[in-house]
């Protein structure tokens, strides 16, 4: 059946977004959301089949009452596969128990050679999924509900305004009930309203604000859920790589005779990064690929390759030398690469100095170490490419495929199953470029995967940094001047970012305590490095929060003040503090989360507690977070006894999911700070396995994270890494009080053992 005659109806949501009703099979109602030029006509029905995957609509109601809801953003463990469909289900009053969630993958059509993304934005793990969904997925659900109500009105002979919806059922004033399933067919031919149907008021919410477990939980615990690395589409070759240790090295010699003699090995191919392209869009390093009919054959073939690599300029890279260079830059004789902020006059403020405090903090390079190593599946035919990619940004993956294949926009299809961790690593698509290069050379589907060890050796690392801080305090013990100088190798270098903006990935002009202190200066010093670098979740807040929140705690200690009252005095009275870039810091909300964790941990005993207590707070993307940590010293061991985290994210979509994210980010930040560092010598990363890059074990981590959620009715913010910035400084502050050791150098455990 055809849902509608003539051009498919659509509703304008904004200048660039519209809702569209998609023609589906009999008895099926589908509503999608699209992004296009304002005047662009929606997809013609001829392109849509009756296949859900091909169609990829947001919502589909089947005649039996089952509801399929599409999740557009990749779920890398952030819970968006649950929370995004939950938002749609709420607005359409679906019965959550009858909802199945389908990852949407990328859907793109051809708009005169330019891509038109069927689902609008598709991006995961950047803390933006929830705010975006709040804006444009609620209307999807509202429209579905409105159409069902119109169909029910006709069926029941009652005006739509007098009907109400509840858990997949429309209920008439006289008690008659019609299920969504029985209305789906009729609803799909309802004429669209002239304006957007109203959204529900929060008092009507039945799903938002209630705990919802991960929609994939059952398939995960039974081992049935397939990640990209688990897929084996027909007629495939497994590809494994021998990678050049240096991104800018070259292949000197290759003898593949023995490798090719291994039963099952089909081909040995050499690939290399395309010159002149930004990091993350082409192969990360030269490599020789062994393609075979089985993983074991490919691995055996790789072990029989005889090859040598010629080092490139990066072979002189040394993390120790970089740290020395940073120290030299920060010696006070050198002008900064960028004066990021300069309020008042830190120099003349010195005239009123009662005391001055100085500290230098060092934080090492870090790897992403995702659970699922990099991998990609590509099937390349003359007129189409089909991929399965564990990516955070399918549209960026698409552009890599398009550049390498020259295919038209709609000829490239990308499936995105659940992703085994992202943390920013999968905003880059070097592994996609590699797989496409290989697929171009064979007529079979290529399943490329890296080993965990290769993943550690070839990453777009989070750069390390050195901070030099100075604070000036007047006679009334107020901080009147703050100078923060940071040296790092920008994470956005070699990525087409102009030199004048390279600082922006390293620190924020608005970060605390900017705007709280009359004389405030922050400078950034550029280090040059050929080690690949890239985005990491929580950057740059995690590194900066560590030094800022530690240093404030240092000052409080030096002034013999209660760190909590000192911090609250620094923040001042609750108010909207303009940060100078058009945004504001809600001091009241920040104070509130800090006071909540302090009360819960029993801060009033801070001075006399046997164990050490520590606090820290931060603001990230309009959300507020604070940690309180209690640490005990048990002989040679540090034991994290208690962790409390309070967050204020505005309206909470899924409290259980939020608590999971907050506890998870807290543990991850502690794991990073406790143990982890990437070092390199001769341009090679020295950490070869996870034994050298020891993610924290259960024994090192706290047994529990007590999460306090501040109820709110503001538009929700993202929360996937909100709890990262304040976790490590609260821990370090607690360690100081437990052991009188101030850790200014990470990883924390090694430094603590050195100093104690």
């Amino acid at each position: 059946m055809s849902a509608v005659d003539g051009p498919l109806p659509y509703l304008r949501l904004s200048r660039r977004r519209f809702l569209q009703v998609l023609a589906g099979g009999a008895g099926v109602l589908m509503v999608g959301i699209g992004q296009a030029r304002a005047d662009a006509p929606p997809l013609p029905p001829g392109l849509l089949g009756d296949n859900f995957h091909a169609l990829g609509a947001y919502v589909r109601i089947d005649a039996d009452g089952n509801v399929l809801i599409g999740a557009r953003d990749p779920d890398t463990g952030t819970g968006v596969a649950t929370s995004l469909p939950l938002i749609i289900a709420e607005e359409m009053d679906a019965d959550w128990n009858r909802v199945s969630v389908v990852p949407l993958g990328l859907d793109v059509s051809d708009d005169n050679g330019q891509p038109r993304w069927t689902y609008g934005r598709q991006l995961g793990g950047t803390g933006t999924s929830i705010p975006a969904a709040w804006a444009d997925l609620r209307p999807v659900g509202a429209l579905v509900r409105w159409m069902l109500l119109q169909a029910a009105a006709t069926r029941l002979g009652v005006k739509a305004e007098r009907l109400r919806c509840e858990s997949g059922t429309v209920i008439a004033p006289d008690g008659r009930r019609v299920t969504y399933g029985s209305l789906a067919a009729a609803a799909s031919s309802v004429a669209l309203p002239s304006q957007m149907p109203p959204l529900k008021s929060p008092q009507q919410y039945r799903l938002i604000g209630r705990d919802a477990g991960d929609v994939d939980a059952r398939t995960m615990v039974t081992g049935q859920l397939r990640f990209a690395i688990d897929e084996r589409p027909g007629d495939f070759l497994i590809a494994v790589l021998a990678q050049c240790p240096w991104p800018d090295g070259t292949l000197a010699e290759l003898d593949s005779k023995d490798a090719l003699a291994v039963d099952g090995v089909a081909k040995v191919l050499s690939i290399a990064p395309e010159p002149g392209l930004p990091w993350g869009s082409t192969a990360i390093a030269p490599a020789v690929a062994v393609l075979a009919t089985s993983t074991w054959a490919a691995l055996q073939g790789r072990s029989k390759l005889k090859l040598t690599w010629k080092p490139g300029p990066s072979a002189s890279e040394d993390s120790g030398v970089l740290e020395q260079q940073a120290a030299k830059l920060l010696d006070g004789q050198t002008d900064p690469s960028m004066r990021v902020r300069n309020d008042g006059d830190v120099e003349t403020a010195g005239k009123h100095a009662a005391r001055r405090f100085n500290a230098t903090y060092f934080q090492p390079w870090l790897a992403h170490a995702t659970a699922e190593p990099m991998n990609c599946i590509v099937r390349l035919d003359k007129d189409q490419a089909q991929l399965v990619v564990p990516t955070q940004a399918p549209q960026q993956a698409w552009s890599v495929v398009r550049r390498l294949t020259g295919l038209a926009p709609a000829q490239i299809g990308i499936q995105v199953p659940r992703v085994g961790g992202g943390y920013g690593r999968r905003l880059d698509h070097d592994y996609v470029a590699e797989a496409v290069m290989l697929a171009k050379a064979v007529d079979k589907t290529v399943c490329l995967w890296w080993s965990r060890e290769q993943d550690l050796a070839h990453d777009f690392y989070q750069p390390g940094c050195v901070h030099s801080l100075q604070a000036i305090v007047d006679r009334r013990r107020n901080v009147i001047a703050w100078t923060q100088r940071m040296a790092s190798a920008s994470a956005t270098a070699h990525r087409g970012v102009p030199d004048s903006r390279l600082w922006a990935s390293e620190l924020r002009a608005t970060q605390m305590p900017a705007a709280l202190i009359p004389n405030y200066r922050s400078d950034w010093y550029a280090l040059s490095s050929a080690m690949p670098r890239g985005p990491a979740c929580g950057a740059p807040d995690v590194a900066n929060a560590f030094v800022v929140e530690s240093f404030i705690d240092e000052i409080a200690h030096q002034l013999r003040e209660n760190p909590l009252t000192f911090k609250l005095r620094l923040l001042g009275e609750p108010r909207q503090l303009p940060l100078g870039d058009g945004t504001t810091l809600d001091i009241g909300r920040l104070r509130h989360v800090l006071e909540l964790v302090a009360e819960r941990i029993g801060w009033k005993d801070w001075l006399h507690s046997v164990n050490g207590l520590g606090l820290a707070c931060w603001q990230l993307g309009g959300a507020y977070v604070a940690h309180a940590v209690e640490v005990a010293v048990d002989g040679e061991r540090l034991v994290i006894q208690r962790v409390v985290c309070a967050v204020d994210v505005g309206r909470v979509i899924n409290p259980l999911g939020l608590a999971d994210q907050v506890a998870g980010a807290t543990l991850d930040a502690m794991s990073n700070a406790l143990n982890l560092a990437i070092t390199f010598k001769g341009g090679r990363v020295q950490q070869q396995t996870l034994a050298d890059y020891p993610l924290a074990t259960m024994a090192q981590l706290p047994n529990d994270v007590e999460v306090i959620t501040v109820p709110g009715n503001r538009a929700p913010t993202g929360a996937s890494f909100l709890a990262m910035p304040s976790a490590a400084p609260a821990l370090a502050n607690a360690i100081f009080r437990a052991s009188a050791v101030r850790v200014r150098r990470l990883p924390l455990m090694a430094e603590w053992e050195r100093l104690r």
Partner: protein
Amino acid sequence: MLPAQAQVLPTAPEDTIVAEKVRAAIDVLINGEHFRHTGDPDLPLLWYLRDVLRLTGTKIAGEQAGTGADLVLLAGKPVPAASVSIKELAGREVLTVEGLAANDGTLHPLQQAFIDEDAIGCGYCTPGWLISGVALLRRKPQPTDDDIDQLPNVCRCGCQTRVRRAIKRAAAGKANVA
């Protein structure tokens, strides 16, 4: 009597029929099912599970020290599937995450407890946690926090506190087992 269409060959094609050499076979028992492997005896169990049997719940976790995502129970003990070859399996039963639930689909109490506690991050390392958790519960039905601390798995999503709760829930018999 032969069918009309059948032809009687003048001579038997003795030369063209060569009996295949009897290949050495290794009998393995995985999740209660018997399999016979006649290929490379050095094939690591990980690839046998993932490539041959297509049991992909056991994940790629690292060649030496890994995340624990490739743990299986071998004769009741958790071992990384990448570290064992097929020839070492003779006479020993392998249990993977796919074999934890009962044949009728009833989940193992720890699987149910993972769902109840939402003890899942990205989900990639979940099977490995379940395997070491089940091994712990079998060895010690009422594990202490110190026992749980000994689990070898790691997780960047930070699901450890929830895994701990799930193990305790399963131990207390409080998982929502139907």
